[in-house]
């Protein structure tokens, strides 16, 4: 029971990252009809916004302390971050809560990156075949990765969560189980809540604002909305920015869970495509649902008990291939996915 609860928790946690990326991917596909292979790179860029914010907050005044020696035996340099110099305790607070500062910074930055990407590149590919869209965004992903590598190197760069949110909680006790059976990291719960809020926000935005309604109408029938004299293109551009921001925020918040490095986007990309396919191409609720579902399935597949049981029937290492296996099965049996409409890129 406790093991199952743990894996469900793990699953929804993984799932929230998948869901966020897949949500953005679907927004772009649904609004612009573009298959964006650079979406993983946006997730990665978001994570590196957090790294950059951390570095900026850490810009320090350097003083020489003759009392202490560095590794070469020279007098040690003492670094005092300027923010603490200027703002005192508030400076320390900023450094400690740098992930949240990054969230605030990442929203405009990522929206801007998204808009630049759409206006500068993607726009020219609306009328090109899907294959061309895949190729050019794939190329863009390679370029973005290499730029990040050139600037930040290849090693992961750790970002820590605020002290208050570090450590773990005894989730089992909360739901009335014995102590110490279901321990769960606090930050992962924060991540889950954050993604639920973000997903809810995107849905509310699409549902309850005029802007969102126009966009949804445009997703269903672009031409008609265009005929009504509404500038749907500009709205779609903004939606691209929103999708980039969703991916970027997912990346920012992910940094305390997994220290970011430049290939992280590609790792998530393949996965999130699988999520989108399972959810149904173009379906926003489908993407979210499939994200959580795949997260949970993946978690269960990695339980030793299940791994061994499946290996016994001749499918070894199920945890390594489960995601791909699901993608293959869904595409063959139900190509429109869980909630997709029939006919979209089907056959």
């Amino acid at each position: 029971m406790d093991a199952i609860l743990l894996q469900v928790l793990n699953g929804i946690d993984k799932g929230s990252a998948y869901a966020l990326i897949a949500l953005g991917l679907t927004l772009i596909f649904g609004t612009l009809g573009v298959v964006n292979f650079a979406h993983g790179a946006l997730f990665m860029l978001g994570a590196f916004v957090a790294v950059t914010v951390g570095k900026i907050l850490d810009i320090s005044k350097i003083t020489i302390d003759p009392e202490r020696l560095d590794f070469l035996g020279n007098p040690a340099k003492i670094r005092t971050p300027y923010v603490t110099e200027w703002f005192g305790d508030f400076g320390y607070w900023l450094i400690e809560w740098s992930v949240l500062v990054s969230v605030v910074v990442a929203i405009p930055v990522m929206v801007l990156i998204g808009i630049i990407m759409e206006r500068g590149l993607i726009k020219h590919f609306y009328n090109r075949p899907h294959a061309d869209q895949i190729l050019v965004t794939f190329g863009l992903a390679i370029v973005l990765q290499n730029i990040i590598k050139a600037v930040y190197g290849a090693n992961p760069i750790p970002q820590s969560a605020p002290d208050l949110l570090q450590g773990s909680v005894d989730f089992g006790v909360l739901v009335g189980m014995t102590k110490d059976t279901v321990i769960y990291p606090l930050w992962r719960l924060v991540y889950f809540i954050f993604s639920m809020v973000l997903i809810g926000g995107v849905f509310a935005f699409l549902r309850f604002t005029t802007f969102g309604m126009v966009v949804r109408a445009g997703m269903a029938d672009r031409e008609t909305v265009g005929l009504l004299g509404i500038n749907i293109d500009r709205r779609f551009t903004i939606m691209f920015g929103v999708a980039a921001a969703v991916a970027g925020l997912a990346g920012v918040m992910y940094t305390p869970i997994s220290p970011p490095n430049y290939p992280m986007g590609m790792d998530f990309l393949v996965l999130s495509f699988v999520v989108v396919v399972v959810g149904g191409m173009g379906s926003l609720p489908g993407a979210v649902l499939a994200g959580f579902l795949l997260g949970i399935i993946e978690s269960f597949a990695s339980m030793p008990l299940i791994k061994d049981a499946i290996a016994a029937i001749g499918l070894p290492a199920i945890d390594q291939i489960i995601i791909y296996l699901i993608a293959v099965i869904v595409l063959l049996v139900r190509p429109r996915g869980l909630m997709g409409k029939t006919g979209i890129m089907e056959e």
Partner: protein
Amino acid sequence: MSRLIMNRRGLLKTGAAVGAGMAMPTVLTAGGHGYANAPTGSTVTLGFNVPQSGPYADEGADELRAYYLAVKHLNGEGDGGMMNTFSSKELQGTGILGRKVEYVTGDTQTKSDAARASAQSMIQKDGAVMITGGSSSGVAVAVQALCQEAGIIFMAGLTHSNDTTGKDKKANGFRHFFNSYMSGAALAPVLENAYGNDRVAYHLTADYNWGWTTQESVQAATEAKGWTTVANVLTPLTATDFSSYIAPVLNSGADVLVLNHYGGNMINSLTSAVQFGLRDKLVNDKNFEIVVPLYSRLMARGAGENVKGIYGSTNWHWSLQDEGSKAFVQSFGEEYGFPPSQAAHTVYCQTLLYADACERAGTHQPCAVVEALEGFDFDGLGNGPTHYRAEDHQCFKDVLVVRGKENPTSEFDLLEIVEVTPRAQVEYPADHPMFAGGALGNCNNG
């Protein structure tokens, strides 16, 4: 059967061998002066083949820094570094055998294919007489095999799998770095001291060769001390989130988690394990502990705060206070402004060892170099008295057991040395079962 690879600077003239396409089996080994890429002019070229893209690119970059430093020292520039402390005094700062050392670099991409392509271009195009580098065992084994075929000396960089000098050992290849077995042998007594002899271990193991050999070694060594192993779970190489593997650990009855992971895997699994609060828990009335058999400072940095108090082993660390280490840290630090990593150290040593062997042999000819290195005893390179064993071309030297530092004083000061495990304790017979199944073969002059 002939090894007639011709190179730009090749000496071999293959007049007769090619009649009507039926090359006769002519074994041209140990042929006196004829060997692959014999340097003819006033320079000699070494090939530095390191990962410059992919997950280990930063280690590759650090290796390159050490190589540049080694070349400087060999050519008599700079302060000479460990050449001054090296027990063999053949190297005079006049290059190798009087020839100025030049180098070419390449990107292994941490892929066997790319690494071999890069090495091939160094051998065939640039006339490199020795190839060195690498930051993973798969690449090391692949390039070592290539060098064996081509008749070039290979001085392995960072490679920790038992296989490199075990079932995949080659006569032309040498490893200065330590291996999984040594990690286990060095760690076990320290762990016993620190955590007692009735511990129950849970292993998470990266699902590929290196992971398996490390897991096998650590399990054997700790079980010899009385520990039991409750589970060994293989994790996908491509995994980035280990939470679903970490979560069940606490309820398995284990009180120690061994993470047989390296690089990104290690960073992510360790981060998860700490976040899950494992180290705050009491199991079987003991504090739950985590062990990382192979530590690397560059990787420890990626895991940030999470390494604090966690045991592991390493080949070398810059805080060592012997003369060799101090000299190396000094000259590396002066040059680049930060201390070298263990990867930098091992490749620097390998370069000096190769140069020294050439001096002692009086030639670059691979078989002569092999002979000079086999059974070579030396000191002053930072690991105490060291022996290059003839049977498997593995270096035997002290191994460091380290622990993540609780109060680091700088961003480089992440590990503290807990114990320098003496060489005798990590030695093993050449026919040890964990290393069985391979043969050096004969040295190859190309």
